[in-house]
């Protein structure tokens, strides 16, 4: 896979129907993200491929879709955050992939469990994606969920990041609802969950 943003943008500009940009996103961009995600899972593509691919797709999508995508595929309240870690790349990749696919999501940035709970309360978040790199941060998901339970908040939490890849059962032990191992996993999960949320 060549990492060539200039060529990708030129091809997209030639192929898109300006009256129906979402069709291009759905029929071209999403399959591209799927392909990259599947390649990452199989060890064909690297993290750099995933990041640069997601970033280029996001830039193309941003140039085509309106700033607040009313025609996007979801109206759910979705947010993404990094819990305690200072490593933000995973969040950036997932956020880019979701935005490239037309989802509108809030980015809470890096939060402690307490601050994350405040953000969730302020925004009425229904689906929360949490990205971590370090094991202590993965274990902090359980702390966040305990705080949420104390407040009587019900939301769906999807986790991702290296500790959850290395220990396939860890997401259950910290009490998450689902785990994603790639940006495409996150896309599939958000699609399914936002569909459920709407129904």
């Amino acid at each position, binding site marked *: 896979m060549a990492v060539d943003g200039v060529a990708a943008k030129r091809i997209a500009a030639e192929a898109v129907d300006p009256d129906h940009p979402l069709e291009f996103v759905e029929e071209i961009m999403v399959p591209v993200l799927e392909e990259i995600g599947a390649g990452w899972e199989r060890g064909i593509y690297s993290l750099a491929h995933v990041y640069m691919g997601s970033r280029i797709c996001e830039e193309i999508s941003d140039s085509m879709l309106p700033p607040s995508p009313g025609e996007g595929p979801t109206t759910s309240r979705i947010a993404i955050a990094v819990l305690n870690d200072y490593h933000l790349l995973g969040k950036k990749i997932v956020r880019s992939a979701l935005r490239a696919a037309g989802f509108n999501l809030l980015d809470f940035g890096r939060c402690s469990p307490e601050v994350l709970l405040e953000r969730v309360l302020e925004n009425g978040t229904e689906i929360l994606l949490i990205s971590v790199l370090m094991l202590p941060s993965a274990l902090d998901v359980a702390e966040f969920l305990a705080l949420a339970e104390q407040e009587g908040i019900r939301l769906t939490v999807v986790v991702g990041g290296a500790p959850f890849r*290395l220990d396939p059962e860890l997401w259950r032990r910290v009490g998450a609802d689902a785990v994603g191992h790639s940006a495409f996993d996150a896309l599939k999960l958000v699609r399914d969950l936002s569909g459920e949320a709407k129904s």
Partner: protein
Amino acid sequence: MRAAETMTSLQRTLTTLGHAEPDRVPLFLLNNLHGSKELGLTPKEYFANPEYVTEGQLRLRRKYGDDCLYSFFYAAVEVEAWGGEVIYIDEGPPNAGQPIVGHFDDIFDLHVPIIGEIPALNRVLRATELMKAEIGDEAPIIGVVMSPFSLPVMQMGFEDYLLLLFEHPEAFRRLMEVNVEFCIRWANAQLAAGATAICYFDPVSSPTIIPREMYGDTGYRIARETLPRIEGPTATHLASGRVLPIAGQLTETATAALGVGESEDLCDLKATFSGKLSLLGNLNGIEMVGWNERGAHAAVADAIARAGAGGGFILSDNHGEIPFQVSSDTMMAIADAVREYGRYPLDGDVRDA
């Protein structure tokens, strides 16, 4: 009844690095974070004093009887050398704070830090000297450097570093120039202080992180430039990243051993690197948190069965740092298991055990 061990830890390690069978499989418990627990200190208190770190490492080795002392404090110690901030937590490794490179142009203003002027590095060097005075030639002391190619993740953040790699070749070259010089000086200072060998952490070189075809012009070229100027033996560690797609190039980098992760089969790794590079690994540190004694024994027996024959294998974790959350009981079970299953000649049915 177990046969008596006939070698010192250093003899055991050197024998396996020579691709021959010692008395048993060497065990490197890379438990740099656990000394603070032994001394009842927070990581911040512990790493502030080289005497604490020395005492912690000595106590851990007395407890588990593993085969090295680990003079590594934490990865972000090198960020302090470049003027960066380190953020401590109570139950894990200190993290690098805000990147020191806020803009790509900042790279052209960087100067190689002088090792002797950096308090954090001096603490590591003092701990290394103290460990050497205590351990002599009984066991190797393993020092650590971040590779010039992987250090920028902490210097500028992962996202900006990937953009630098793909889109700013001139700034990338400049950053590598200063990082190579720093890495060599830092490694050689540790060797002069008493480290036996240097572990060269280079996770970004793994095809898990960058495209395989990019390695030749980046991590490989930089390792070829750096490792021969380090005045002692080195082991390269890709911190759980895949190594097999770049196996041929890795063997050309003048390194003696390779840290390997759980994502590749140890049998395949052994077959690929046998007689060329010794393997260091590959117990899953994250899963280790949930292991009981039986799980630890099974994992150790399996790893030894796959990679132990003929030497060229040191049992260790997959990442070069056993998580803080791993219990003392689990590390003890690993240490017991290597004595149970790792005696040479290996039993043919060690895997069944």
